[in-house]
């Protein structure tokens, strides 16, 4: 199965571990992620201002590229990209006036009127591939690995774009169970990581990170599984500061769900780029015998 794939900026820079592991794992599962030609910025944050239509041109232009590619579906990995693309699509479907304004602004492109469905890779895994098929493909179950799922905000909010239950999503837990890992209950799974406050108020992000990382540690998790490069950045980059400020925090590995998926379906650990992950994921997996000891 070929699927149009929108990477977004982070996936090509800081989150190479997310992209590489996803493409390799999906190939094993029979899904070919075809990168969108001429993709541009997703818009980063969906603009809530009613008259800020210029902000939506970037995501809509990406959706036009999908249509030009002859596809009616596009998959994203980054939660933020998912959110902006999906909401821009909803805007274009729901408001004729705004749709006409945005379409008339883009001279060279074909008109967009909601012909593309935006999905997140977790939805593809759950709804297209299916847990059962993934379970059959697992070669190296992640036995003994205790993880907590962390969705962050943009996968399940607002309600209209949620990939799962808004209040109590389970898709990450379900995937982890299929891969043989133990998914622990995590009450802060949909809490905000501080998001783009990292730019203007990094101290606030330290507090958010401590709340989430500290809870994961108290729950006895080996690692946090996530799906958003910004969450990974905030929870990862701030760990040293959190540990300085709060002596009870000792560190928490962060891993993308695609890295664990890739590992479990037999993709080589080198492809998963654990070296780019925060919090000592590589050492953890090595200690658990899930990746070979360094020679």
């Amino acid at each position, binding site marked *: 199965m070929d699927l149009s794939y929108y990477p977004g900026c982070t996936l090509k820079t800081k989150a190479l571990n997310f992209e590489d592991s996803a493409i390799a794992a999906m190939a094993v599962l029979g899904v070919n992620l075809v990168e969108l030609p001429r993709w541009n910025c997703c818009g980063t944050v969906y603009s809530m201002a009613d008259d800020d239509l210029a902000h939506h041109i970037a995501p809509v232009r990406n959706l036009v590229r999908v249509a030009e590619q002859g596809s009616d579906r596009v998959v994203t990995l980054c939660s933020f990209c998912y959110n902006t693309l999906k909401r821009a699509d909803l805007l274009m479907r729901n408001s004729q006036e705004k749709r006409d304004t945005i379409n008339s602004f883009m001279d060279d492109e074909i008109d967009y009127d909601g012909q593309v469905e935006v999905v997140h890779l977790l939805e593809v895994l759950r709804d297209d591939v299916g847990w059962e098929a993934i379970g059959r493909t697992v070669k190296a179950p992640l036995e003994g690995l205790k993880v907590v799922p962390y969705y962050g905000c943009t996968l399940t909010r607002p*309600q209209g774009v949620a990939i799962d*239950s*808004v*209040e*109590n999503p389970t898709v990450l837990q379900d995937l982890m169970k299929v891969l043989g890992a133990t998914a622990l209950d995590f*009450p*802060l799974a949909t809490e905000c990581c501080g998001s783009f406050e990292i730019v203007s108020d990094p101290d606030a992000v330290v507090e958010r990170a401590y709340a989430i990382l500290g*809870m994961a540690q*108290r729950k006895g998790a080996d690692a946090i599984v996530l799906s958003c490069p910004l969450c990974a950045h905030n929870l990862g980059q701030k760990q040293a500061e959190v540990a300085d400020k709060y002596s009870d925090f000792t560190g928490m590995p962060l891993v993308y769900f695609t890295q664990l998926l890739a590992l479990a379906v037999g993709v080589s650990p080198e492809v998963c780029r654990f070296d780019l992950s925060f919090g000592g994921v590589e050492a953890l997996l090595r200690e658990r015998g899930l990746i070979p000891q360094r020679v």
Partner: protein
Amino acid sequence: MRVVKKALVIGGGVAGIQAALDIADGGYQVILVEKTPSIGGHMAQYAEVFPTLDCPQCILTPKMVDVGQHPNITLLTYAEVQKVSGEVGNFQVEILQKARKVDHTKCTGCGTCWQKCPEKIPSEYDAGVADRAAIYIPFAQAVPAKAVIDTEHCRYIKYLDFMESGAEGKKPPQCRICERLCPAGAIYWEQEDEIITEQVGAIVVATGFDLMPVERLPEYADDPDVIDGIQFERILCPGGPTAGVVHRPSDGKTPKEVVFVSCAGSRDPEHGVPHCSRVCCMYLAKQAMLFKHAVHDGQTHIFYIDTRTTGKGYEEFLQRTMAEGTVYLRGKVSRIYRDGDKIKVMGVDTLSGKQVEVSADLVVLGMAMLPSIGSQELADRLGITTNEQGFFTENHIKIDPLESTCPGIYLAGAAQGPKDIPDSVAQGSGAASKVLGLFARSEKTPEGLTVS
């Protein structure tokens, strides 16, 4: 055709009890049908009732006893209305009398059976905070105070079912302890469900409410120490399973910090129900007060959207709760979760504009009131309509609030919409007066009802 001067009241809560008593006191025959083994309804579960803090044992049970002894009232408990046909003045009703497996002409309610029965099932009356036996009366003041056997859980019934099915394997125990010990010889295994056919001239529907299940709000944790308002009533009740000593369900410790969440599901069109449940503001204030009376160093917080205390003496009651130290936080709760020994309640205080996190030992959710389970099926049988939430529709919400959309069928209590006790009693009496008026007019002709 003459009007059958006999009424059917469906539902034995306080509204149905009041309607039945008023019709019976007016000199007409009443059949009161209740689906559980005792009348009393939700009111019988409460610890003390606002705004005067009297206990239901003092104010409700005399009415229950009156129903049980009234010469004009035929009480059918453990029974359900199955089929209704006919029209105003002359309805034919089929009532299913569920098998009690106990001969109520012999049972004296002595209690030997339910003390010795080895089976333990979460008690409906105690809202699951305590157990009952498989042969039981729901509570000590039950009317009738005669036992029924819960055929779903009785060991001997399971044995009989096993033998009848011809299944292989280990046989369940035969038990029959109740039968051996019953001094009155009242156990009656052969008793089967029975259909009772009646003719009545008018029907009062007073089937009440049930609380929205906590599971409907997944962000409010699945935890033994996150309970609903009725469960906390049972824990606070001096005659309840803990004898009024406040214990939390998980470990039996006395909670010091209790957080109450009002509008849990109510006033929430997005993922609850749009209506206001009307009683939660008052009963949560009352529970906070009762808790502080029971646990003197206890701390109480109540999250609220607005406090709605519009009944007589209600606002004064709320002021007293606040004066006694309960902290009111104006805002919604976004998440409740366990963190070690504590329950964390995350919310917002919109008055200070800050997010707050309150640590609690016990959390009480003022869950939304919904029509009682099975009321939609009853509406279909009666041919009357319900609103979007399933509450029975009145003929006119302002000037004909007691009559349903079908002539001769009247509404009382929370079955018509969320209601407190005073309003339920008033509406019960109101529905009774409608029935009495109909019977007094008496004669029915093709043109309608005329005076005989």
